[in-house]
């Protein structure tokens, strides 16, 4: 069971990586193709297809169709049900300072919760690796916790931690623990058997094996988990705010839907998405720095 979840986690993350790298490559392609485009008319079709322009056009087309109320006619929607992009942009502009402070609030909950949750998850992985027979049970428990719906956890955490920032941080903690525990465990377990043998031949104790081998080996997996958690923690924070909160994007979102201020609701989603992307990019940036440090360590030795 643990193995499966790990694979899912890594698969998703690597799918993300793949998307990022492939788009980067195609960007370069399109630049090259763009230069020769004026000479060859036929090339321009390829250039159009080359990964960046087409999705961009599709996105713009989507927005234009939305703005032109094509979707409204298609699905028989009213403007107050699905506001136009221009109305959403206006709502963002009108409430910018409020939205910004709420985004900061939600992001704080997400970051704090994710850091605590990831730390716990890493500890669980350490225990599970050090005492596989009995510690492994904790891993299964934490995987079961992962399957518990956030909406069931949220009211309990509110009872425990009040309606301040603590309860949302606790919700995020609970939702981010499993991914970290399972990934870090995978990283600590899947060390090179030869390296393990070498450590044994040096009569290295358990702490030394952890210090020099297992923790190092788990770092890439840890960052995969952090990237998964970066997106999951935003969801946890927002869903937590649906229940009892007086601040934050989730609170504003559910409130503005209740009073039928749909453009404001949509602007919450837009800002939440932007905040989530920034959070993810920061983690990815940190990963680059760390992996660089990691490989340079290896190169020098």
């Amino acid at each position, binding site marked *: 069971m643990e193995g499966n979840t790990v694979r899912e986690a890594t698969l*998703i993350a690597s*799918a993300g990586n*793949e998307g990022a790298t492939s788009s980067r490559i195609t960007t370069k392609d399109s630049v090259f193709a763009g230069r020769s485009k004026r000479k060859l008319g036929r090339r321009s079709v390829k250039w159009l297809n080359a990964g960046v322009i087409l999705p961009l056009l599709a996105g713009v087309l989507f927005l234009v169709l939305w703005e032109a109320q094509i979707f409204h006619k298609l699905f028989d929607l009213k403007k107050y049900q699905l506001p136009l992009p221009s109305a959403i942009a206006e709502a963002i502009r009108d409430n910018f300072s409020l939205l910004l402070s709420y985004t900061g609030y939600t992001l704080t909950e997400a970051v704090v919760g994710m850091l605590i949750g990831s730390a716990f998850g890493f500890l669980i992985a350490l225990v599970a690796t050090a005492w596989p027979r009995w510690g492994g049970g904790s891993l299964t428990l934490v995987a079961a916790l992962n399957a518990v719906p956030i909406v069931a956890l949220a009211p309990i955490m509110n009872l425990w931690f009040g309606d301040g920032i603590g309860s949302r941080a606790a919700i995020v903690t609970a939702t981010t623990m499993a991914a970290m525990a399972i990934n870090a465990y995978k990283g600590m377990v899947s060390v090179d058997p030869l390296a393990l043998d070498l450590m044994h031949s040096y009569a290295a104790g358990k702490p030394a094996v952890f210090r020099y081998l297992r923790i190092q080996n788990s770092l890439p997996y840890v960052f995969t988990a952090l990237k998964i958690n970066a997106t999951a923690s935003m969801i946890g924070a*927002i869903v937590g705010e649906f229940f009892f909160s007086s601040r934050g994007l989730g609170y504003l979102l559910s409130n503005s*839907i209740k009073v039928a201020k*749909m453009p404001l609701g949509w602007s919450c*989603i837009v800002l939440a998405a932007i905040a989530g992307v920034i959070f993810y990019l920061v983690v990815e940036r940190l990963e680059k720095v760390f992996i660089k440090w990691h490989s340079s360590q290896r190169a020098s030795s």
Partner: protein
Amino acid sequence: MKGNSAFMRSRVLPLSVWLLGLLIVWEAGSWMLLHVAQTPLAQSKLPYVHEVAATLWKYSGTLVKEGGATFGNAGVGFLIGASAGVVLAVLMSLSKTIEQLAFPYAIASQMIPILGLAPIIYGIVRDEQVSRIIISGYITFFPVALNMLRGLRSVDLPALELMHSYAAKPWAVYWKLRFPAALPALFSGLKVAAPLAVTGAILVELMGAQHGIGVIMLRNLYYGPSHTYMFWSTVIVGALLGVASYGLMSLAERLIAPWQPEFRPKGGRR
């Protein structure tokens, strides 16, 4: 059978000890809160396990009915979303253009707090049934599509060349090579998506629906301390639904794609 008993000893025994320990700590913690610390709302914060179990038993009929409603709704959305995800993945693997069109948005949509969209979708549709299905389907869609695409891509190159040398038709390549190769990845996606689909369904129920476990959960939460055991029972039922959906997918994986390393007796580890 010898391997089976070893499995029982190495896996099941520690896990049951853990569970038992957790229950004891829970019961003791509840007693501590109620009698030693005398916290206000002690039973709401951490109720006695035996009381919750009694409530679960007493109201099992209602809970099963409402839980079943939630599970069924999540299931319908899950099936629709999963099929759409598989279709999109196949289309993306067939056509570079479709992939370039859809993949960036698929990745970007992973960044959008999908569950945050739930009230908006509910606001648009104003119909609990439809919005529940939409949200469950939407949540299911992307993990399944991304994993399936990865699986379709991850076929053995020599096998592909062999098929090519046999002059296999494209549908034969898909049917005999790519689909079987994609099954493990597909199930990874399904196992991520299944508990999320349940979460989505409950979320819609919380926002105002007639049936489902989320409705009872919210109702009992607002009725206050006298309904605390019922509230905790609904939480447990919700948790069980999530775990069950994951377990169901794992079981299906074992039945449909049983050749994977972790299903071997040694769990893929040597």
